[in-house]
């Protein structure tokens, strides 16, 4: 049996699954001030009499690190950055304890200027004096040559609790994002560590010594040990849980547009033949642009509980949520209240909902029912417009080869998968407005927890070879190997796949769940004075986000219910 647990902003959703299907599902309110308590009460409710030996793992998705960043509750971090020529590194300052130091590596990984050990020692002393326990180190082009980051770590050694090196968090080029990524990993580290140690203790206290997996923003999982190395990967896992929950029902031939309509926001993502589309570089959260692998998602401030207002005679929805819908005891009218007025939703205080919408109707000078219809319609239109913007943005992304420009893949969704609380009420209208057939995902209020439970372990790896310099490197794995002049792209791909497999298994993957994909393989002849002097090879491979094979029967049984569900969920 597997437990999937998703701590959301309002609810904590927990499911218990085995090969036969969904055994139990529980929704408990999230206590934002005490997420551990939310996890415990969710687990308690779903497990009840289940014997511990029947459980094989638990997969958690929490808003812990996301909230800490959004609320600015970050542990102080010492950042040591060596940039060499280029944009002034001072412009990427993270916080007070930010130290640009000497040292420079160029685009091919050649050392231009060494680091100055005494300078690092001085910084280390200052950080210790300031009581800093976490340190991030980032040097420009460290993904081409990590020498300086490694040297700096060697000097910092045992004086700190946690040291994160930029080249280990991502193989991609982007120095400012490398700095931000190292910083976020270091700044959420103490919080993440404390929380998950508490979760582990609490499980152990209940006799549950099972492996803990944590969901990442790319829709994959990692084991607790891997998360303690790079806790930044847990940021923004919430949207990923829902998207993975849609995978069993997605078309295997077309692209699917996923719309998760929550209370505060609607989150959107794209599945292409059942595999989620990834963001090209990484998460962006508040002011932080990172290299943390993530699904391509768009979140708009419009959900079932968004505040409805009339501003200068015009209706405005969201982007804020001021509490639950009036039908559920709130004080501000919401799109959910409009659904009550329209008679679609009945399990609440319809009178309160009517009172709320009546205020809006008075401000607009429209009859009550018409006002509710206008609110509902506007909500659907805004969601569809945002989806169009997202797809246009994906399709207008620049490409760098003639082949891709002329024949590149364009996303044109063939279906709409709608989930979240109000999904059954919205789906049909969203389908009409977008012109894309819409379906409500089965268990649409629990799909997020199911997605977390069944997500497989994912990871990515970049390999770079330069036969003129005679090297092949995979920075994230600290892999460095001399290669001969005839080292080929095919050999580079094989090398990358081997390294990726080892990494995935170390981070918790099961050998039969390694669906490996080559994301990128480029080879350039290096021409100097009209002759070829070497080859520059770049390879990027990933374990594709997807669901674990062993639970195919669960997903199949859930998928079978789709068509039955589609027939009844057309209330509008």
């Amino acid at each position: 049996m597997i437990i999937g647990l998703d701590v959301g902003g309002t609810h904590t959703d927990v499911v218990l699954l085995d090969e036969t299907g969904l055994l139990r599902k529980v929704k408990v309110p999230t206590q934002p001030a005490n997420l551990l308590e939310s996890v415990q009460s969710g687990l308690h409710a779903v497990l009840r009499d289940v014997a511990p030996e029947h459980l094989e793992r638990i997969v958690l998705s929490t808003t812990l690190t996301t909230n800490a960043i959004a609320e600015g509750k970050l542990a102080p971090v010492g950042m040591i950055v060596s940039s060499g020529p280029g944009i002034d590194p001072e412009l990427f300052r993270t916080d007070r304890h930010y130290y640009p130091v000497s040292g420079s590596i160029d685009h091919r990984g050649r050392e231009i200027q060494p680091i100055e050990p005494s300078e690092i020692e001085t910084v280390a002393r200052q950080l210790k004096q300031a009581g800093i326990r976490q340190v991030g180190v980032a040097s420009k082009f460290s993904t081409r040559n990590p020498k300086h980051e490694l040297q700096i770590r060697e000097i910092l050694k045992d004086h700190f609790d946690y040291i994160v090196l930029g080249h280990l968090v991502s193989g991609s080029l982007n120095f400012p994002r490398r700095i931000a990524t190292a910083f976020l990993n270091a700044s959420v580290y103490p919080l993440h560590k404390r929380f998950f140690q508490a979760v582990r203790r609490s499980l152990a206290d209940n006799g549950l010594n099972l492996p803990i997996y944590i969901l990442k923003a790319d829709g994959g999982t990692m084991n607790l040990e891997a998360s303690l190395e790079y806790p930044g990967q847990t940021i923004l896992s919430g949207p990923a849980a829902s998207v993975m929950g849609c995978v069993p029902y997605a078309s295997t031939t077309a692209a699917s547009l996923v719309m998760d309509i929550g209370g505060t926001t609607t989150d959107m993502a794209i599945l292409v033949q059942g595999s989620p589309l990834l963001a090209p570089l990484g998460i962006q959260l508040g002011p932080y642009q990172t290299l943390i692998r993530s699904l391509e998602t768009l979140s708009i401030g419009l959900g079932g509980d968004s505040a409805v207002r009339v501003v200068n005679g015009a209706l405005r929805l969201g982007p804020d949520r001021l509490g639950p819908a009036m039908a559920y005891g709130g004080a501000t009218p919401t799109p959910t209240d409009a659904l009550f007025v329209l008679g679609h939703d009945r399990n609440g205080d319809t009178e309160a909902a009517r009172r709320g919408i009546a205020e809006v109707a008075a401000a607009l000078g429209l009859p009550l029912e018409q006002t509710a219809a206008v609110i509902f319609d506007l909500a659907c239109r805004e969601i569809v417009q945002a989806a169009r913007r997202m797809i246009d943005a994906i399709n207008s992304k620049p490409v760098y080869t003639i082949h891709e420009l002329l024949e590149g893949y364009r996303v044109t969704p063939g279906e709409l998968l709608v989930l979240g609380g109000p999904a059954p009420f919205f789906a049909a209208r969203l389908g009409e407005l977008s012109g894309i057939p819409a379906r409500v995902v089965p268990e649409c209020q629990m799909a997020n927890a199911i997605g977390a439970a069944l997500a497989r372990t994912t990871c990515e790896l970049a390999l770079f070879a330069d036969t003129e310099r005679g090297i092949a490197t995979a920075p994230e794995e600290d892999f460095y190997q001399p290669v001969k002049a005839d080292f080929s792209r095919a050999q580079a791909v094989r090398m990358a796949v081997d390294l990726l497999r080892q990494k995935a298994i170390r981070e918790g993957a099961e050998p039969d769940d390694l669906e490996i994909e080559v994301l990128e393989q480029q080879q350039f002849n290096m021409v100097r004075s009209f002759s070829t002097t070497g080859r520059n090879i770049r390879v990027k491979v990933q374990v594709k986000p997807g669901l674990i094979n062993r639970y195919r029967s669960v997903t199949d049984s859930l998928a079978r219910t789709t068509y039955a569900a589609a027939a009844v969920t057309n209330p509008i």
Partner: protein
Amino acid sequence: MLTAATKTGLVFFPAFDWAISPTHPEREERLLYTQDQVLEEGLLDIDGLVELKPDIATTEDLQRVHFCVPDPAAVATESHLISAGGAKSIADAVLTRRVRRGFALVRPPGHHAMRVVHGARGFCNINIEAIMIEYLRARHGVDRIAVVDTDCHHGDGTQDIYWHDPDTLFISLHQDGRTLYPGSGFSHELGGPTAMGATINVPLPPQTSEEGFLYAMDQVVMPLLKEFKPDLVINSAGQDNHYTDPITNMNFSARGYAELTTLLQADIAVLEGGYAIEGALPYVNLGIILAMAGLDYSKVREPDYQPENIRQSRDTGDYIKRLCGEIQEYWKKCPGIIEKNRNTKKFAERERTIFYDTDNIMENQKEKIRVCPDCSGVLAINSWTDRGYHIHAVHIPRKACQACSELGYQWHREANARAFDRIFLQDRPRELYLARQG
């Protein structure tokens, strides 16, 4: 997050799957390290720096500018159409005010491509700036345009296309033609009989460094721009004046390019040459992009940059001073020469041979222009190559008068079908492009 002071568009199209030949300098790898630097610096994350997808130039875009022999498909591959299309994308973004200015970082280059195109010369097949400029005029109604060509090689293609156009000021700063391909671009080359002074050449001596370039900018380029009052300024931003470039002999630097960019304040920059792909391009492009976006570039420098080692000699400085003075004198005399031409000549002719070094073609050209009192004058070109191809082409300029327009059609009609393989007419006012088999 970094924010650009000036909203700047960037088309980056390195054409990673195209080369002239496997070991040619114009190769797949050319912008690879520039890409690495651009990505590593996080330029595309800067707020106000917008990466745009290139368009693909159309046959009509080519026909506005060129007589492609025998036809556009024969001389321009997809890579050329995307390169020109990239320049068009930037132009559209600037003219629709999506961005304030923009840089088309594209390859292959175009500034050696002339009005008649029999093949590739100086790595260029079609003139990407001219295609963009004529597109701007046809679609966005722009009139007066200045092109400042800072490639190390004389922009002879752009010069040829605008030789007779008084509304396009073409200024080329380059290494003296006595010492470098294509061997033209001397200070006395000032434009055709009705457009003298709209072409300006500043042939700089080898080893000119930052000081000399910036002096020429200050003394020639900026004052001329001020007087010409263009609606748009375009920079043909070749980067082979760099002190490490393998096929030229100049001493310019990334810092110098960034300062030149800041001085010029071009609306649109288009990449041209530059073959020091590791030591120069990554830093020069970074400097240019930061300068265009109004961001600090004071820490951009090449790993081996030692200004004192590449400083120009005192003699070079004196030479440039004299040269700039001479050019200013020429410029002042041009309006009088145009008037005199109009009073004394009805037609003017010139004869040239043009060598296509990349494709190894020799072209002979006879050009005849009507020295019109009312417009820049209709133009007829008679061109044949050592491959035996012979064409007749008539260009009716954008602001042609009635008489020139009629004469153009007459020339086109009267061209002897048996004497030519192909007979072309470019009617810019009506946007009509005719070609018939001889």
